[in-house]
């Protein structure tokens, strides 16, 4: 007689089963900081739209130790997510040239190149150079 048995998956601890799942969850959890940072940027834009006084108040708030620590942590996670994303771009966006596919290293490298150029442009516009 058939009587299939279904094994339950622990809903809140399933990711502890393997290292790869823990790494995945770490990636997912750290993305919360990216979301919060994006929200902060939107708040900054909102303050900017209300004039110089409001924007300077916003900047003053960011100088508090809490926000300085938050921004450093968010920056580290943004870098982590950028690297993680660049590393998977050959899978998500393969480029076929002739019959063959471009080696993954070239696609990843191109992303780092564009990142560097974009950073220089932003720093230039910000008046660093």
């Amino acid at each position: 007689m058939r009587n299939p048995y279904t094994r339950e998956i622990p809903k809140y601890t399933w990711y502890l089963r393997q290292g790869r799942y823990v790494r995945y969850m770490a990636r997912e959890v750290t993305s919360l900081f990216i979301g919060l940072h994006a929200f902060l940027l939107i708040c900054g834009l909102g303050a900017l739209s209300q004039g110089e006084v409001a924007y300077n108040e916003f900047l003053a708030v960011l100088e508090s130790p809490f926000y300085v620590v938050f921004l450093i942590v968010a920056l580290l996670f943004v870098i982590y997510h950028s690297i993680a994303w660049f590393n998977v771009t050959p899978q998500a966006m393969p480029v076929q040239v002739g019959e063959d596919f471009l080696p993954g290293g070239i696609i990843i490298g191109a992303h780092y190149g564009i990142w560097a150029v974009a950073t220089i442009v932003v720093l230039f516009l910000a008046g660093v150079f």
Partner: protein
Amino acid sequence: MSERKINLEVLRYDPDKDSEPRFQTYKAVPCQDDWVVLDALNYVKDNTDTTLSYRWSCHMAVCGSCGMMIDGEPTLSCKAFLKDYGDTIRVEPLYHFPIERDLVTVIDDFVEKLTKVKPFLIPKQPKSIEEGEYLQTPKQLKKFKQYTLCINCMLCYSACPQYGLIPDFLGPAALSLAHRYNIDSRDGGCQERMKVTATNIGVWECSFVGACSEVCPGHVDPASSLQQMKIASTVDWYKKRLMPWSKS
């Protein structure tokens, strides 16, 4: 050839007697050093316990029947060389599938999902036999060839936590096969498949854990096909709204 004795901890389940699965250890199974886990299971079945049930057929990583959890990792037992494991090896049925008996799982859900994505050529312009073959260049073939290598072993389903948590998810192999036809130059069924694949039980349930590609014995890289399908689905969504006059 030298001989080594290993202990096999096998998850057993007899639907007629057991209320839940239990581990049974076969101690000191004499193994040759070039054996794989499947050979050890076959030795046990032939010499120790004829009631042990498991699927296998080709013994050469082609048929996709002998997938099992070996020391917690979804693996083809015909590719799992004993020399790569310790003296005690734990063997369980593939995770995320109901257990029929011992190491045999119920795969009906997978087969049903496979048919849902229409895994066959839907020609752009149907031809009669008299009109000849659907021609294809080597470049066009190479574009999708990797995705034809899937042997339906279901290791990717066993590795995918999304499938485990959300059983409606179509899963890596079925979606990869849909992608294989979507990017085939002879096929015109992409829109037809998107009705199923571009939904919240399709590619959008995938959160790119990447485990499917890590365990895939055929290097199909299902994770890559799902990400490419997400991009195609997004482009299609915008195209339909911003350029309603264009043909997808």
